[in-house]
């Protein structure tokens, strides 16, 4: 800084900064810093969760995990084979129920109902059901099935999961069907195809990738659901009976019970189960994302 300048304006800030008043500049810097930090926090949390699962989960990994059932309290060893199988059965049954109902309901909203009053109401309530607390769905299925049947059962668990999966499928199906241009439907109708034929052969086929994505998303959503299974499928430390009555072993509830237990081998199994379930779910959501991206880009 030369002497002349100092004499002329002793308090003047350097030329570069004078374009923007310092208060504005500080606010700007703070915003940039804060939002970058917020994003870093988000990334770090996901990283930390994955690290925790890998560090703790890998320790418990062994082939026995996939062959042995969960051990009783205090007994040594064991695996989580029964819980894995139970989870697969419950999730599969849930999706099996939710898919036809969800796709048909989505079809109604996008095709038959489109602008009707009832479709608006159903669309709105479906969106609410989509974010409804899953524990309330557990209470509902408990009242509906467990209490009258007098026992916890895999059926009740599957119904609870189906209720959670359905709104996801309804929503994606409707969104995807709406992307199919109306001209195609008109072309089908002009050829004399009845509405059901137009829907099944034209609109469904056009939107098939999107509908499948919805089903995968629903699968990812229910695979880790714990709260609704607590009062419906519960858990069990042995192989379950094929009629699915009684407590059905499943990964989420197993993780919940074992992680908070005092037995170290139970905790170990909980970590292994947690790693398994999280990796599966993250993989499913990534797959769904890529399917939907390629579909939209087409």
């Amino acid at each position, binding site marked *: 800084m030369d002497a002349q300048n100092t004499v002329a304006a002793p308090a003047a800030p350097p030329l570069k900064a004078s374009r923007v008043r310092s208060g504005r500049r500080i606010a700007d810097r703070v915003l940039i810093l804060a939002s970058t930090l917020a994003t870093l926090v988000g990334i770090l949390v996901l990283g930390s969760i994955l690290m925790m699962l890998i560090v703790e989960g890998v320790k418990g990994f062994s082939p026995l995990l996939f062959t042995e059932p969960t051990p009783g309290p205090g007994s040594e060893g064991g695996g989580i084979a029964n819980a894995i199988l139970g989870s697969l059965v419950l999730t599969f049954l849930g999706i099996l129920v939710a898919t036809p109902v969800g796709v048909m309901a989505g079809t109604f909203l996008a095709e038959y109902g489109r602008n009707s009053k009832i479709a608006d109401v159903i669309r709105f309530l479906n969106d609410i059901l989509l974010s409804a607390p899953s524990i309330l769905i557990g209470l509902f299925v408990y009242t509906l099935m467990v209490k009258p049947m007098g026992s916890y059962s895999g059926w009740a668990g599957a119904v609870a999961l189906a209720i959670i999966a359905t709104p996801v499928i309804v929503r994606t199906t409707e969104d995807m069907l709406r992307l199919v241009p109306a001209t195609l439907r008109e072309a089908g109708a002009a050829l004399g195809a009845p509405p059901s034929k137009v829907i099944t052969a034209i609109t469904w086929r056009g939107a098939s990738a999107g509908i499948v994505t919805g089903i995968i998303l629903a699968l990812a959503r229910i695979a880790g659901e714990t709260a609704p299974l607590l009062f419906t499928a519960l858990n069990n430390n042995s192989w379950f009976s094929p009629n699915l009555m009684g407590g059905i072993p499943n990964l989420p509830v197993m993780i919940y019970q074992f992680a908070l237990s005092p037995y170290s081998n139970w905790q170990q199994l909980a970590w292994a189960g947690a790693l398994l379930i999280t990796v599966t779910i993250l993989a499913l959501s*990534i797959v769904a994302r890529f399917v939907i991206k390629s579909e939209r880009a087409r």
Partner: protein
Amino acid sequence: MWMRSVGLLASGTAALYDAALEEKTHRMAALTEKIALTRTAAPARRKPGGLGDQIFRAASYASALLVLIVLFGILASIAYGGWPAFAEFGPGFITSSAWNIGQEQYGAFVAIIGTLASAFLALLIGVPLSLGIAVYLTQLCPGWARKPVSMTIELLASVPSIIYGMWGLFIFAPLFARFVQVPVSNVVEGLPIVGTLFYARVPSGVGILTAGIILAIMIVPFVASITRDMLDQIPTVLRESAYGIGCTTWEVVRHVLVPQASVSIIGAIMLGLGRALGETMAVTFVIGNANRLSASVFDPGSTIASRIANEFNEADGMQLHSLMALGCILFVITFIVLIIARLLVRRTKVA
């Protein structure tokens, strides 16, 4: 004022879809052709709307109605289960803080306060975090990093809530106890107001604030991704003209973007609130599960959902009815919040 005069929101995305559909039209043309061929082979023109057609329509209508029935079924079954508790304790059920299994005295007050307090803390922490992420993704992030960063944040939504619970209890709580609860308690001890608000009697790491922090992380992906989509929909011209007259990023965000997207952002926040209120497993792990009303955010408490998860399987008689009644209160609170949220965020994306 000039910023508001350009109200062309959301028309950009429609154009995008149109382009995608154009492509699809070509693919579909082959399909319609196939149908046309089979049609001409048919002996006579069938009247559209035969029996099969009507069955299909009825099935789709019935499926849609099922969604409606399930929602009302949930309300009806929980109200039915909780009715004896409401009848027994009357309006006092909501204001009583008793939860005594031996004496059959139950009240919802502690759980309601715990639910509201943890959700409020979640918003207090989660909303600035989400807005920061949305601003970063839309304004600051270099192009190549946008997709991976976006996806990482969205993947936070896929992590099951029980995993958040384990992370909160085994990783976060010990760190939180050691680096926050203990030092803060030492500083504020004996001071008025903050001395009660931030004093941990037992610095174990679990408590209302821990639950709030975990919930905040859980709502971030939802609020951030909706806000990001909303900010993306604002025409670039608006942003560019603001930068053109010499606005800083902060001024663009504060005076151009936020006013344009404010309604949707509030809707997204309400949606996050709906999630936070009903979240069960993560909270059950980290809230400490105590039926105690405490002024300190470091003390354990319980929420409606965590109490139901903890006690329902062993509950009987009036306790069971009271838990159902708690569920009923939760239903009413979350559904009011979600209805407001959905009215504000008109159809964004699957959240």
